[in-house]
């Protein structure tokens, strides 16, 4: 057994070394901003991005950005790492642990505060970004999602908006006014009840309102509805959902589930059921493909859109945001690359690949927005944006939210109790 104990000792020592290297590598040296002539600047910048699919099309779009960047910085090499949102955290966490950080990181709304707090993102104030400059070029709606402790840590690239869609024909058939769809909790519920169809046994055959949600994901609907009831999920990093509105919202959702739509019902393609007229009303995304390859023009023409407005009118917005890595050795180059990524042409291409809209102040002018009625609608309303997240431990709380909201909707637990518990976890 001697041999194995020796092995054990060596192994332990190595493991300690691994753990130690993990500690030392997160520090990161801060370097002063040197202004180097772009034409002479050299180096490699590593870009982690889930915003471009790793398809030929996505890579070409990214290469176009690199080509533009290389016109100004001919000697700087750009190394993309095409990740997806499903594996983004694995990529970021191993890069933190190994000290091989990225120079540019594209993440989503909700990621900014946690990673800013972990010192993974750099304060963009170092590159002259203020709320004012951000608001002028990008959409002001995403400023809160990019802010941590009053500093800007991310530059919004594209916005992924969510609205409510409805079928005009179904409304007319049910005696509802398609020009004046309901927007309050009460109104939506009354309309949904009228629109729900059942078989003789009482099973729902056509849901009156489609949450477009799989089990474990009702959190997003809750955030959107809560905001429409006047409460943002977090305010200045503090929870803002353990209150009367939170309970009201959650209980309203519960009163809809298995009443106008079975819990967790989705179509096989996991797409909004209103697109294919399998539901007369429900949550939709921010872009729709009206071509024959998509849902077809006939479906598009029958669709109308509105925003939730119980006590205020809101539009839920997610999206892609770019940050500079706090450990980057080429922060200025990284920032320059983010500027290349956020040119109008680049954002147009990115938005198309993501089924989103550019997160720019003049989003309404972009061709992708003009291409379909849904994007036009959500772009027009970007000013009413609310977002999901805001706490430094949001990624952690999110998991608890998912299961707890399910428990309430399925009648297993009480709404107030669950929200109180989540509030405790949110610190």
């Amino acid at each position, binding site marked *: 057994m001697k041999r*194995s104990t020796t092995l054990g000792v060596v192994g332990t020592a190595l493991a300690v070394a*691994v753990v130690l290297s993990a500690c030392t590598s997160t520090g990161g040296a801060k370097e002063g901003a040197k202004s180097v002539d772009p034409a002479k600047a050299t180096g490699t910048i590593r870009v982690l991005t889930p915003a471009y699919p790793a398809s030929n*099309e996505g890579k070409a779009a990214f290469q176009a950005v690199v080509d533009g960047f290389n016109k100004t910085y001919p000697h700087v090499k750009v190394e993309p790492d095409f990740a997806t949102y*499903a594996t983004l955290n694995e*990529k970021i966490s191993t890069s933190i*642990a190994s000290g*091989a950080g990225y120079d540019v990181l594209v993440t989503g709304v909700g990621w900014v505060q946690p990673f800013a707090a972990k010192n993974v993102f750099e304060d963009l104030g170092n590159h002259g970004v203020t709320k004012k400059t951000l608001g002028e070029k990008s959409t002001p709606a995403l400023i809160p999602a990019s802010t941590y402790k009053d500093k800007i840590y991310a530059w919004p690239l594209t916005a992924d908006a969510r609205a409510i869609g409805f079928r005009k024909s179904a409304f007319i058939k049910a005696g509802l006014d398609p020009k004046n769809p309901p927007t309050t909790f009460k109104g939506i519920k009354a309309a949904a009840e009228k629109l729900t169809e059942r078989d003789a046994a009482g099973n729902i055959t056509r849901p009156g309102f489609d949450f477009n949600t799989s089990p474990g994901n009702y959190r997003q609907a809750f955030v959107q509805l809560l905001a429409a009831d006047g409460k943002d999920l977090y305010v200045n990093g503090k929870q803002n959902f353990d209150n009367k509105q939170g309970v009201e919202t959650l209980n309203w959702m519960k009163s809809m589930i298995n009443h106008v739509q079975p819990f967790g019902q989705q179509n096989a393609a996991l*797409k909004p059921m209103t697109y*294919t007229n399998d539901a007369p009303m429900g949550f939709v995304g921010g872009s729709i493909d009206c071509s024959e390859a998509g849902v077809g023009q006939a479906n598009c023409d029958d669709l109308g859109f509105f925003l939730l407005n119980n006590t205020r009118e809101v539009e839920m917005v997610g999206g892609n945001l770019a940050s500079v890595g706090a450990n980057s050795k080429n922060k200025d180059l990284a920032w320059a690359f983010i500027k290349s990524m956020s040119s109008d042409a680049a954002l147009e291409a990115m938005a198309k690949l993501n*089924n989103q809209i550019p997160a720019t102040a003049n989003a309404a002018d972009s061709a992708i927005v003009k291409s379909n009625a849904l994007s036009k609608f959500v772009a027009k309303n970007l000013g009413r944006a609310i977002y999901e997240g805001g706490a430094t431990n949001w990624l952690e709380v999110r998991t608890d939210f998912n299961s707890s909201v399910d428990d309430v909707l399925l009648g297993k637990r009480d709404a107030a109790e669950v929200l109180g518990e989540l509030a405790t976890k949110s610190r």
Partner: protein
Amino acid sequence: MTSPSTAVQAIPGAIVPTRRRKKRVTIGRVALYLVLTVGAFLMIAPFLWMILTAFKSELEVARFTWLPAVWRWDNFVGAMQTAPFLQYFRNSLVIAVGETAVTLAICTMAGYVLSSIPIRGGKFLLNYFITLLMVPFQIILVPLFLIVKSVPLFGGNDIFGQGGTGWLNSWWGLIVPLAAAPIFTFLARQFYVSLPSELADAARMDGVGEFGIFWRIMTPLVKPALITIAVFQIEAAWNGFLWPLMITTTDDLRPLQLGLAIFSQNPASIQWPYLMAGTALATLPMVLLFVFAQKQFVEGMANVGLKG
């Protein structure tokens, strides 16, 4: 294995027969075919559904239809043209062949030692390999990444493994850490253990070296085992996703499953028909491999009579 001989004793008067039983169409046989057919259908039904879906349009997937209105063969073409799939196929092949070669070389030797050579701590070592099976890959992902990045003298690293990228973005990093998984050492051991030791003893008396006994006497007797190990390892390498994703960034190294993730994790919307078409094409080589490999099982191992 001493059990077969006890079995003989349990059946008094056992004599090795020469007559074969006549095959007749009996109710039992019909039932056997019936059950097997129903079972086989249940097993492949999801697979058939996958292939049907591969021919459908996006809208047909969303609305649920049995058969596609038009059989869209171009889904297969479209899926393969979405990314450099030919290269992904090649990369997966390299990884599968590399891992399997390493596994067959290392695990058979280790398995043989664990089953047949009385080294000290042999029991402990077997338990060691079994214990390693219990470690979920997800939890060692981060430390493993650090180790692979710190391989000395590779990828610009110094002798202490610092300064460069080690085995990241390399065939080494893709193949070596995942090859020779303990499960295959264990599997190899379980096959060698059923061989009678008399064979090895006889060879030893004839002056055959230990490696020769392993390589020329014992290993040829466990051919189905080697094929089983190879089939399992190739399949595992072929379907590998998380590790290649973590350590590669370029198409020169990325395997098939990362290509297929383009469809399932597309940021715009999941492309079901392409995902199913791509998966069907990716699965085809594995099915063919099995069709050929399974014939080998029939040929038998440790041939007849060895332990009688």
